[in-house]
């Protein structure tokens, strides 16, 4: 607003020098330039907030920007722009500026809404944006009545002013609500800011400053949470989340704060009866919902409700939203297969997700952390499958995700599928391993046997792990023949034993390495070939024995099926990969019982209604501002002094002026229309009037 338009500032002509100082400050704060500058500053700050990922860990920023810039950006608050002191300051300034602007303009605008300015002199009228003067031909009285009727007809409210010199001004005003628009929009900004302030965490910031509040950064059970991290009913507004397993209840909420969380005590208890996910046929989730029971001391009857995304439960000034889901401690029955053991002795383990189990093994002491269980692993289906089933997605079934940590703290993370999945037409049990979160899982494919189980694989592996038994088998199958000396036979069996051990520990690469290290270059190729042949032969012998035990074949030289042949090749690949699989254990899921947890978000937001109220004001105000034009018209009629009765028609001088507080092209068009009407009236009545 240009200052000259403000009546307040116009009347504030400095009476004393003292008054001038605060006025200048007020002028500055209430100035349009400052307002626009602040609006632009807010925009730029917001851009930064969206371009720089907010609230990540300092470590991530270090990697992204290097330690120097990460530090600089951090001290500028760029990683938490919307909470940074300078950002709040801009907001406060905007609030101040708008308040001052409103207080200064309101009296003037209110007056403007009511006044018709009917007393403006003719000279003043001739200074209005639109004005014209011409001769009239009808009596003053008729002229005036026509003018009033015309303006009323056009929607103006009118006021008539008779002057001492006998002239009359008919003043019209229309669209005074426009001014209300200014008032509503600008007050609404203040209202919205107040609402937002009510919902901010100022109280927590204050308590933190005074030292009575501290974020909890550890993952511990409720009774171990730091006393200073608890919040009670004194916290007026919050927004936090909590996971509640099926069949369990909670009266505590966790609010993210700084780099940890705070625990908020709730005045009610929420019980999660059941969480459900429904799926589309594409495998995409269709809905998430939870059956809840809310109990509170002041409630006679608990509230039963089913919430879903977009359908929260409102209770008093709390709202409970379906926001996520998690595993709620699915119980697991596991078989831990020791991968190096020469006998079949899997360890049975009963545990659950979110538990940590110590394991003492010949390979060392470990801790196993069971992190997650997923019921569905949905991936895009292959083209053939799409053609066959018409489904676009394929479900690979449940997985468990867990970490094995050794005594030094090194961890291996695993993802084990419970059921076999089809790869190139064969069924495999997939198990993924990675040594850091940053890597993708590397998968080992354990071939399923004819019963879709892993039994054959572990039998074969155990046999391979057992040099004594495997040699017994081998020599029984291939006893010394007469043409071979005892010594050669001994050497040969020893070699086989060695080769098997090498294969077991490193696969065929182990054998290549062995040849490279022990055989002179000239003979290396030939000898390697021989080694490979011997190894394959020995492995086959063991495998055939496994098949014989299964009853698949009767004799070692029976024909074996294509399936059993491919299985063997797949198994060898898997055994070769075991050396890079981390600690020698495989966790098989024997059975599980899924327990889900619903992820609830619970809020208390006393500012919400204030913000909505402000928003409604804003919208109404904006429409008043844009679509109600405030218009004024003056029709000034001045009877000509020299008019002599009886000669010609009574004549007068008419001045019409108009003003629109929006300087729009249509104002002129409308003005001209009005002038033409008055002229026409005068022309058509020129002869009839007395």
């Amino acid at each position, binding site marked *: 607003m240009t200052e000259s338009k403000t009546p307040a500032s116009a009347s504030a002509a400095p009476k004393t020098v003292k008054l001038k100082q605060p006025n200048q400050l007020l002028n500055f704060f209430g100035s*349009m330039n400052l307002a626009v500058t602040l609006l632009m500053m807010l925009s730029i700050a917001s851009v930064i907030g969206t371009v720089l990922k907010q609230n990540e860990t300092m470590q991530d920023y270090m990697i992204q920007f290097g330690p120097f810039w990460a530090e600089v950006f951090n001290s500028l608050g760029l990683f938490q722009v919307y909470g940074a002191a300078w950002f709040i300051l801009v907001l406060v300034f905007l609030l101040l500026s708008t308040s001052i602007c409103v207080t200064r303009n309101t009296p003037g605008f209110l007056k403007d809404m009511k006044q018709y300015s009917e007393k403006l002199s003719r000279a003043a009228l001739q200074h209005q944006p639109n004005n014209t003067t011409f001769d009239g031909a009808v009596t003053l009285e008729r002229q005036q009545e026509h003018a*009033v009727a015309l303006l009323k007809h056009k929607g103006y409210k009118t006021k008539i002013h008779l002057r001492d010199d006998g002239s009359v001004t008919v003043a019209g005003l229309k669209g005074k609500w426009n001014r209300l628009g200014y008032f509503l929009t600008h007050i609404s900004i203040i209202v919205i800011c107040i609402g937002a302030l009510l919902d901010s965490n100022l109280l927590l910031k204050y308590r933190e400053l005074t030292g009575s509040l501290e974020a909890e950064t550890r993952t511990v059970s409720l009774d171990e949470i730091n006393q200073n991290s608890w919040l009670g009913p004194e916290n007026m507004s919050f927004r936090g989340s909590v996971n509640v397993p099926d069949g369990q209840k909670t009266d505590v909420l966790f609010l993210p704060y700084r780099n940890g969380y705070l625990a908020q005590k709730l005045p009610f208890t929420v019980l999660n009866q059941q969480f459900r996910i429904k799926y589309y046929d594409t495998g995409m989730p269709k809905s998430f919902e939870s059956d809840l029971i809310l109990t509170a001391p002041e409630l006679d009857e608990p509230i039963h409700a089913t919430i879903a995304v*977009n359908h929260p439960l409102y209770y008093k000034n709390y709202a409970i939203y379906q926001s996520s889901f998690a595993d709620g401690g699915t119980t697991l029955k596991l078989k831990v297969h020791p991968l190096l053991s020469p006998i079949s002795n899997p360890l049975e383990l009963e545990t659950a997700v979110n538990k940590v189990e110590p394991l003492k093994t010949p390979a060392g002491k470990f801790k196993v952390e069971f992190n997650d269980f997923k019921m569905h692993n949905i991936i895009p289906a292959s083209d053939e499958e799409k053609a066959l089933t018409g489904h676009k997605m394929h479900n690979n079934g449940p997985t468990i995700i867990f970490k094995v940590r050794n005594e030094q703290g090194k961890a291996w993370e695993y993802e084990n599928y419970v059921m076999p999945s089809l790869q190139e037409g064969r069924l495999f049990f997939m198990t993924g391993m990675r040594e850091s979160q940053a890597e993708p899982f590397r998968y080992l494919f354990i071939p399923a046997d004819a019963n879709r189980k892993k039994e054959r694989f572990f039998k074969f592996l155990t046999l391979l792990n057992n040099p004594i038994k495997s040699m017994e088998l081998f020599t029984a199958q291939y006893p010394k023949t007469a043409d071979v000396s005892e010594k050669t036979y001994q050497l040969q069996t020893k070699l086989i034993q060695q080769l098997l051990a090498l294969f077991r520990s490193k696969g065929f690469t182990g054998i290549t390495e062995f040849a490279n290290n022990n055989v002179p270059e000239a003979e290396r190729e030939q000898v390697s070939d021989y080694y490979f042949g011997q190894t394959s032969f020995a492995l086959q012998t063991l495998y055939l024995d496994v098949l014989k035990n299964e009853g698949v074949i009767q004799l070692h030289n029976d024909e074996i099926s294509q399936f059993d042949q491919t299985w063997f090749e797949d198994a060898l690949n898997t055994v070769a990969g075991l050396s890079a699989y981390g600690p020698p254990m495989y966790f098989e899921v024997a059975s599980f019982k899924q327990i889900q947890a619903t992820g609830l978000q619970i809020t208390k*937001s006393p500012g919400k209604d204030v913000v909505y109220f402000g928003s409604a004001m804003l919208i109404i105000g904006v429409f008043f501002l844009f679509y109600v034009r405030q218009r004024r018209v003056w029709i000034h009629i001045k009877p000509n002094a020299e008019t002599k009765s009886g000669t010609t028609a009574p004549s007068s001088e008419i001045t019409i002026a108009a003003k629109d507080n929006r300087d729009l092209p249509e104002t002129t068009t409308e003005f001209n229309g009005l002038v033409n009407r008055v002229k026409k009236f005068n022309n058509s009545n020129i002869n009839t009037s007395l």
Partner: protein
Amino acid sequence: MQTETYLEEFKNEGKKPFTLRDAAWIAFVILGSFYAWIQYGSLMDEYEIGILGGTTIGLIFLGRLWPSLQTLTVSVSLMVMLAIWTYSTHGDVITANEETFFLKFLLSSQSAIMWMSALFVMATATYFLALYNKSDFTYKTANVMVWAAATFGLVGMMVRWRESYIINFNYGHIPVSSLYEVFILFVVLTSLMYLFYEQRYKVRAVGGFVMLVISAAVGFLLWYTFGKDAHVIQPLVPALKSYWMKIHVPANFVGYGSFSIAAMVGVAYLLTERALRKNSESGFAKRMPALEVMDDLMYKVISLGFAFFTIATVLGAMWAAEAWGGYWSWDPKETWALIVWLNYAAWLHLRMSKGWRGTPLAWWAFIGLLITTFAFLGVNMFLSGLHSYGEL
């Protein structure tokens, strides 16, 4: 008092008489909505019935304000009815769109959208041709093309709405939920708003400029269709299953559309102004609307856009409160909406209160389009957040 006599005399003048056409229009809209309610009412919740009622009233009002809209509505309705009827006579299976002539070549949502795209691109060229040859006929042709394109666009959207239910009843939703769908909404709304202003302010010479934005959007749409298969109808994620979508998204796109028109009028303004500066007798400038007209149009369009964008942002906040548990989370899309809003608030202040006019504001309106485009597209492309529909 003579005043009353005059008033009596004036009473009926200037008032648009209530014609048979008006009556027919009101009856048509009411019957149409009633039919929709009978047919599909069982799928609506009370809010959606409210939205249907609001749409009915709004459409009656808009049609009377702008009679051309009546013709459009009737044509779109007839075409959509034909399409729905054809589907139903072919057993309501989606593959009917490959088998029947009407659907395959004209009225299935994909065909209609392709027609729309072609017509918009042709209209752009035709508008520029008209600017060049000053032919009234060429201008009229271009104008008809835009009308036809908008008709096909609307038909495409309505039929797509039905098709989503035909493909799988569970997928059914109003087609304003993915980036692909809102692009159609964008071009249709923008072209309709442009047509309104063209008629009202006689500014057809800026048509080519406005159509440039629309053509660019159509180009994106085609790339998105053929390059990314984005036109495939997908079911809704749970967060989008809400009646809020039906009002929040269209309100937003009235805003985006207005800002785009304003920017392109701004470009036309700048070119004209430059031509005049070089040569006050410039032939180009003579073909363009007067500078004041364009300046005024920019203001009018931006205020319309600002009003709707305000509503859309507030509705968005209310939806966020219901879906995510907080009315404001500084999510990138939200934040960029705020940036767009603050930008135009500053623009309006400078014009209203500082009395700025012309060139600087035309530049600003153009830059505003870049900001708006980032809010609309850039956020989806470069930033992640809760509004993760339609990632590229």
